């Protein structure tokens, strides 16, 4: 790391504008795809490709600058602050989704069924009962006023099957990552590689089983259109699955960087950032497993 105390000011770069063009193209394509426009999908793919190109180029440049030793402690601090703001936004995202689950399940759905002061519910719709599986009270093939057809599942996801196995896999990946972290701090490079490969394999297995579980759920008719249960289930698990995917990609990049010898026992912020992110994703899943499937 550089001993220079003046802040490192990078040279001029085209990457931010390339990134803006990539993301704008991606969303224009996505929006048009959602409206059924023919070229939507291709424009979306083009936007995605530009974004990936930007990430490789920009982040690769940052890695090269870091390895060449031109960053000082001020730049190190700015990276740490950047990471903390990113994590703050992530926490807010998940807090909103968990909040939606809590509000729907504990408050609004019971109110529909006449809880608290809604004593007139039976007067209005005689025989109307509700519960967390409120979707069951919809006639199959019924259409909402918005014209969306509701999908009525034959059963909910079985807690003891894939969800429990997936929780075990993800928790084990937290353990293997901790061993990798310990090996890095102790300077044992071969051990880090072994433990990191195990972590990536466990994360990938989790994703594979999650796809299988979605397949089962979809087959049983549990979809995003299956009322509040379907919406919250797919929103929470889908968003989490996306994070695991990103985590696996980041861990793979870290594995590549360790093989290249980019980190030392006392200078490895890249590893620490990704490790913390993985622990966070792990804790979110544990929360999901307990609140969606058990409590």
């Amino acid at each position, binding site marked *: 790391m550089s001993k220079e105390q003046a802040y490192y000011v990078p040279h001029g770069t085209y990457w931010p504008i390339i990134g803006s063009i990539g993301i704008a193209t991606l969303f224009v394509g996505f929006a048009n795809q959602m409206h059924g426009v023919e070229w939507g999908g291709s424009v979306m793919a083009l936007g995605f490709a530009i974004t990936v190109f930007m990430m490789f180029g920009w982040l690769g440049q940052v890695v090269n600058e870091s390895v060449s030793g031109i960053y000082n402690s001020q730049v*190190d*601090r700015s990276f*740490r*602050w950047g*990471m*903390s703001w990113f*994590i703050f936004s992530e926490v807010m995202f998940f807090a909103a989704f968990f909040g939606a689950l809590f509000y729907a399940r504990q408050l609004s759905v019971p109110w529909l069924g006449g809880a608290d002061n809604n004593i007139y519910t039976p007067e209005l*719709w005689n*025989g*109307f*009962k509700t*519960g*967390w*599986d409120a*979707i*069951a*009270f*919809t*006639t*199959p093939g*019924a*259409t*909402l*006023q918005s014209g969306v057809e*509701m999908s*009525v599942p*034959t*059963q*909910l996801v*079985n*807690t*003891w099957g894939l969800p*429990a196995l997936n*929780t*075990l896999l993800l*928790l084990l990946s*937290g*353990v293997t990552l*901790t061993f990798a*972290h*310990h090996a890095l*701090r102790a300077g044992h490079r071969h051990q880090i590689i072994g433990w990191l490969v195990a972590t990536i394999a466990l994360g990938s297995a989790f994703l594979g089983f999650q796809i299988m579980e979605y397949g089962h759920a979809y087959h049983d008719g549990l979809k995003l259109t299956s009322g509040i249960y379907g919406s919250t289930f797919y929103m929470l698990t889908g968003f989490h699955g996306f994070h695991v995917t990103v985590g696996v990609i980041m861990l793979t990049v870290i594995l590549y960087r360790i093989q290249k010898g980019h980190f030392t026992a*006392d200078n490895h*912020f890249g590893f*620490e*950032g990704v*490790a*913390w992110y993985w*622990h*966070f994703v*792990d*804790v979110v899943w*544990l*929360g999901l*497993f*307990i609140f*969606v*499937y*058990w*409590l």
Partner: protein
Amino acid sequence: MIEVLIIVVIIAILIALGFGLMGLLKGGSQGSDKMFKSLVTRVALSVALFIFVIFSGYMGWIQPNAVVFDAPTIQAPIQK
């Protein structure tokens, strides 16, 4: 009672994770040590909680949410 215990442990896990983040933000050898120790705590607590939840379910102290639908279907604020 079991539910309260589970939620208390979840809060403890979140606190350990939060201390880890503080270590990450601080940096240096002190921050790095703090982060590593906090994450070890969070992993240990998580594994213990998972085992406890599965054991509680096995013993019947808590019931999973997965219920098979056999409720009557009533159409209320929707149109055919």
